[in-house]
């Protein structure tokens, strides 16, 4: 079924997304007050991914603020606190716009990639 071709059809786009993410990180590290450029890179990255209907890997997606597109670095652009009012979780607050991300501490939680269903569907298609 041309697995390699299908797999690498968007390789350039993934490389570009990856590069833009790292560039945004680098710019913020070199000049910590340069939020504008960092935001510009991340928003470009998001539009690129959007145009090609590509999902951004959670490892990347969790490192930027989804509202103002700035890279979240703890102590510099975000505040990380653990709360356990109703259910224990981590709260990441963007210091620039106040948007929060919550991560629950659920032992049973798995990323979609790590779930067995994501793999079974592919196998089923290969057999038919």
């Amino acid at each position, binding site marked *: 079924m041309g697995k390699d071709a299908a797999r690498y059809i968007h390789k350039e*786009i*993934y490389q570009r997304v990856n590069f833009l993410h790292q560039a945004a990180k*680098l710019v913020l590290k*070199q000049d*910590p007050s340069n939020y*504008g*450029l960092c935001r510009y890179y991340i928003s470009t990255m998001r539009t690129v991914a959007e145009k090609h209907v590509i999902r951004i890997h959670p490892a990347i997606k969790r490192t930027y603020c989804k509202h103002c597109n700035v890279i979240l670095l703890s102590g510099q652009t975000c505040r990380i606190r653990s709360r356990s009012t109703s259910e224990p979780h981590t709260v990441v607050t963007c210091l620039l716009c106040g948007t929060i991300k919550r991560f629950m501490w659920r032992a049973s939680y798995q990323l979609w990639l790590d779930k067995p269903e994501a793999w079974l569907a*592919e196998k089923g298609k290969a057999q038919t």
Partner: protein
Amino acid sequence: MDQEPSAKDLTVTNAEAYQELSQADLGGKANQMSSGARTTYVTSFLGKHLPTNRLKTDTDLSAKFESVDCSRRRKKKRGKSKAGVGARTKVKAKLDWKLECGKKTSYSTYLPLKEMWTKYIEELIQFSSSPNLNLPAAAQKMMKADLHGCPLSVRKSKCPSYIGVSGIVIQETRNMFVLVTPCNEIKSIPKANSIFTIVLHDYVFTIHGNQFIVKPGDRAAKKFKTKPSLDL
């Protein structure tokens, strides 16, 4: 049923590509902070966390006065809390961001970005794998590549003062390339009516600005049509 396998394929490549590049780039020089970067970090940190009155140095003391007999100071009224609708709309207005033209920055700040871009483009075009580079394919890839951080120079232009300007691209918008020149200046150059060159190892890529008038995010999806180019 039809969509799921493709989604899986995509995510797998995403993870792989991420690992490949991150090991190559982040492990290296990007992690080390130069002394210049450290001072900029400290100044920005202080600017963010100290109250604004502290950062000011009183130059003109004669204009300043302090009342002695009134021991109680009036408390300043605090504004509304940051979180809420007001803050959000404020940020939205801030998001339309533009680099200030002619503002001084240091060229050395963007050198690691250039280094990273070179590695990225080497991996994308794969210079090392084949001695004879497939030039049309490389050009095709170059069109879809990201140009933030690449060393660019203006070869020809309708406006004579742009000719010969070279530097690192730090922002690409629909109509402009924003460059940082080695003289620590930010210059924005319109794409229209200019021809740009990128030198990579032994190859020279030429970009016709007139055909490049697309947003950088949309460029990858767009098909390039041959337009009549102007004689410059």
